[in-house]
């Protein structure tokens, strides 16, 4: 059964989630990944949105993290002061999903500006809750398509810290969470090296070579000794994604 890169990414992300975990969810692929996980191996996953919905079970595909379908039938809806102080900063979030226009060698993410802050070539949306998710979630998972533009050696602006920021480590800076442990791309999976915090190639999708990945990354990408192959989405996963979770192909078509 053929599948799109987005379907592969959603499936790989779903497999990262363990049953019962508390996940801070974004819209798009992270939302699909969480709902795929809930429908398969992790029925007790708790989804939290920065908008204040906890334990959401949306009856339609939400198009924003403030979608009304995330409220109706959820377990709790609280104000954003509670979300950020009493849930995220409190340490209750086990997994956070992040994405961004630029991701660099050390997992730093830029969603603020391309170019200089004062005179940007492209003004991006900014942090939203990403900076604090990157700091507080016990681990984060990044989802992004590979390209040299998206994976520079160093981001133009650190919106969400990775593993090494201007030479300093997370633990030196006193960050509670473990940071981006996986970067799920459309060609393979990068992981943070435990010693250096540098992103290295950990697994390749079927039919992709390490050189293809290297060519799409702006630094000399190292490869784990044992870069594993990744099981593609199976028929049950694809059926769920296509027929139940995103029947209009809003996020999965490409």
């Amino acid at each position, binding site marked *: 059964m053929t599948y799109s890169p987005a379907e592969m990414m959603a499936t790989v992300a779903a497999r990262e989630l363990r049953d019962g975990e508390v996940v801070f969810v974004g*819209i*798009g692929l992270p939302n699909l990944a969480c709902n795929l996980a809930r429908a398969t191996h992790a029925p007790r996953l708790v989804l939290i949105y*920065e*908008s*204040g*919905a906890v334990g959401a079970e949306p009856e339609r595909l939400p*198009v*924003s*993290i*403030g*979608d*009304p379908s995330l*409220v*109706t039938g959820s377990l709790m*809806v*609280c*104000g*954003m*002061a509670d979300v*950020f*102080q009493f849930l*995220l*900063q409190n340490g209750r979030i086990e997994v956070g999903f992040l994405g961004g226009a630029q991701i660099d060698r050390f997992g*730093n993410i830029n969603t*603020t500006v391309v170019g200089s*802050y004062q005179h*940007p*070539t*492209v*003004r*991006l*949306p*900014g*942090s*939203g*809750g*990403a*900076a*604090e998710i*990157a*700091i*507080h979630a016990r681990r984060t998972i990044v989802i992004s398509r590979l390209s040299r533009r998206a994976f520079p050696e160093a981001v133009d*602006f*650190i*919106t*969400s*810290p990775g593993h090494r*920021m201007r030479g*300093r480590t*997370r633990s030196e*800076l*006193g*960050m*509670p969470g473990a940071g981006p442990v996986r970067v799920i791309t459309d060609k393979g999976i990068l992981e943070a090296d435990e010693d250096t915090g540098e992103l290295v190639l950990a697994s390749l999708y079927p039919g992709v070579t390490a050189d293809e990945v290297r060519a799409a990354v702006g630094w000399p990408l190292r490869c784990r000794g044992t870069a594993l192959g990744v099981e593609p989405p199976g028929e049950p996963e694809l059926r769920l994604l296509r027929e139940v979770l995103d029947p209009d192909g809003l996020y999965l078509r490409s």
Partner: protein
Amino acid sequence: MRDAVAALVRDGDTVVIEGFTHLICFAAGHEIIRQRRRDLTLCRLTPDLIYDQMIAAGCARKLVFSWAGNPGAGSLHAFRRAVEKGEPPLELEEYSHFGMVARLSAGAARLPFWTLRDYMGTDLPVANPRIRRVTCPYTGEVLATVPALNPDVTIVHAQRADAQGNAQIWGLLGVQKEAALASERVIVVVEELVDQSVIRADPNRTMIPGLAVDAVVVEPWGAHPSYAQGYYDRDNDFYIGWEATSRDASSLTRYLEEFVFGVRNRAEYVERCGGLERLRASSRVCAGVNYGY
């Protein structure tokens, strides 16, 4: 609405129209545009389409924010033109969501700052020197701070309120309570004005006490194209369409001419939009609880 904005929103004011995706008061934003307010400092976590329109209309001198995009649909192009090309020039003061929430919490508590464990490793404090640090008097830990935000005027859309402004909100609550209580002046805009007995029947739903409210405006559909839980759904097509409308300055101007300057009030806007009934909420009424003793 005309009177409330005329009386309570002034040129040069720091203005907050809050509501996270939910209950964004476009009706108030449009009235501010119509009354041609100038030099406003606009503050919101998510500027959303409403501030994009106000920036395009020339109301804003400065933007204080944490995420400036069109959720799920693309960019805020008036905002981007202002920042990338200076058309018109726009000063920025930028935080994360938590930082903005903390600024309004400090404002509502009338403290000069709020403490948060945040910003280490990010470039935000470099871009914004108003993000500072404080040392814990118990542990010696160094933590981040943001300064209080006390707007001149805050506008909050609510599902219902009584004539005194005791306002009830359900669904997403955002930072409306904090924003209203941080503010010098408060306008509450509602889908429905209700008898005070409705408010008193379920006091735990009241988010903003009338004692903090300066004006109550009744404006059905006042949050469109945003939504009001239990009243109408978000107009997602409008949000998607904004990408094309706003990408071109002249098409954005035409939109403002037709839907903001071209109508006298919200009722005319609703009529001009046409077919909003398609967004009318379905019924999912919860059971009540017993307040007896």
